[in-house]
């Protein structure tokens, strides 16, 4: 890419808005996923009986099963949330930057 184009984009305030918005959102979402996953796996490491406890009085189904499934569903939901925001905010900014500099 030509130096002047790089310079033009780099000095566009919308570019900075895009970079800061997207990177903070991406890292926050990643941290959320990591926290949830590690909460799950460290519970397994430290307190197995908690997850092996019956879901209700006399049940064979344990707390761990809906929790595990919930982590899976949550991971999918997070990707959906990211797409929503990316479509609404990041793509719009990217389009505007392209219109202004190209």
């Amino acid at each position, binding site marked *: *890419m030509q*130096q002047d*184009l*790089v310079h033009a*984009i*780099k000095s566009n305030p919308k*570019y900075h808005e*895009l*970079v800061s918005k*997207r990177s903070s*959102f*991406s*890292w926050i*979402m*990643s941290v959320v*996923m*990591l926290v*949830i*996953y*590690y909460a*799950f*796996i*460290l519970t*397994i*490491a*430290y307190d*197995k*009986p908690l*997850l*092996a*406890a019956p879901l209700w009085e006399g*049940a*064979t*189904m*344990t707390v*761990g*099963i809906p929790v*595990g*499934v919930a*982590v*899976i*569903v949550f*991971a*999918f939901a*997070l*990707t*959906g949330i*990211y*797409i929503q925001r*990316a*479509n609404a905010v990041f*793509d719009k900014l*990217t389009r505007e*930057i*392209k219109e202004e*500099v*190209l």
Partner: protein
Amino acid sequence: MSLWKRAFPAICLMFMAGSALAAGGDLGAVQKAAVNVPAIIMFLVFVAATLGITYWAAQRTKTAKDFYAAGGGITGFQNGLAIAGDYMSAASFLGISGLVFLNGYDGLIFSVGWLVGWPIIMFLIAEQLRNLGKYTYADIVAYRFERVPMRSLAATAALVVVVLYLIGQMVGAGKLIQVLFGLDYVYAVIIVGILIIMYVTFGGMLATTWVQIIKAGLLLSGATIIALGALYLASDGSMSPERMFQKAVEVHPKKGAIMGPGALVTSPIESISLGLALMFGTAGLPHILMRFFTVGNAIEARKSVFYATGWIGYFYILTFLMGFGAIVLLTGNPEFADAAAVGGIKGGQNMAAVNLSAAVGGNILLGFISAVAFATILAVVSGLTLAGASAISHDLYANVWAHGNVDEQQEVRVSKIATVVLGIIAILLGIAFEKQNIAYLVALTFSVAASANFPILLMSIYYSKMTTRGALIGGWLGLISATVLVIVGPTVWKEILQLGDPIFPLKYPALFSMTIAFLGIWIGSITDTSERAKKEHEAFIAQDVRCQTGIGAEGAASH
């Protein structure tokens, strides 16, 4: 529960068809090692269809971009299915359901770990890969760094991962055929090798992708039928998971222990390390990463991850149901018993899902699932082989050996030769390795991928002060430390080599080997005061602009 109720009529129909077949005679017990006719017919149909696709794709595969990246014309939805297909390998399908069959809840821990890597891939690398890359992930890693050493590192790491992953897939193929088709292990492995060489050399990425998409569709429908059918039968028709769990606990040798976490995760350190390997290993698998170059732009790239995550998550929930269904329906069932095999069933625990299909839907469903499982191996091995061949032709041949001065057609030719060689290597590996639990083998691969490929990929996208020296030090240290620690760890040192107590206590060394890799990159970079390092710092700005906006990225093909 309402979901189960709604699915009920379909399951009923399917169940009636299944029991009608079963009532036709107790074929399973008599024809244990006999040739499974429906399986072979369905498998031949699949092979014919995929060869047709290969022929069609061959007509459209002319340029290097066609060969490596299907011309960049795959949509996000299609690519999501293809990625899910790559991920739903024989190891996931047979291995995880087998693990649930043996240990219950522990199988779910693996699934969760493998799934949660996907959102991270979406948030941190999917769009960036698409914006910066061309054919292989080494394109990103070498973007602003010294070409020859970086490509050599990335290609070596990619090949190590591909070969390790291939072993698991080929072993799965051999086992499957032993149980199902009445064919010899060696023949089976050779057939797989020849077919994948044909798909990849003639049809390139386009054929590989479509084979993967079709297989993903078949596998998802097959797994849905088995899981719901098994739930129906195992819950006495009530479709209540609770009832199925009750019966599973009654018959399983470990009793109530299967309902909670067991021996898989022992210490907190072990669990953190396992989690890192499963999560970030995904982001270091070359055959997955190359899929991001087949879509038109970054928007399609992130869409693919959304669909892939959904399908994979759904599939994992099904494998969990299948594992428990297998406990109830196969344990103590004389039709499937084999006291000598692991788990006491024919073919060992890795055949739990396949035996379960026979228990649920008789010979027809068994045939269908056998064919699908075989197709799964073919499709995943094709993707792996193409990833390995790209590393050899695009990275090692074109960029390292020929310094980028190479004719596109010549590069594709080298790629095809590499495919043939890798196909033969896959056959030999399949024959050499046989008696390991394939899910664990995949877990080993993930440790290496997480420590060697992922750190240099992530850091080259985000760390502006990274230099060639830092990347090389970190990358090689990650690769070497992960490999060595796996070898001296419990799985290889103690269980395979039987050398007594392992030198390194963890099965999954990712916590340590990833730390070593990241520290190596960081220290190697900040202590680098060369002229080259300064230029690389400056080059980050242009890379970042392209990475963030997609301006200057490889465009989609016009056709």
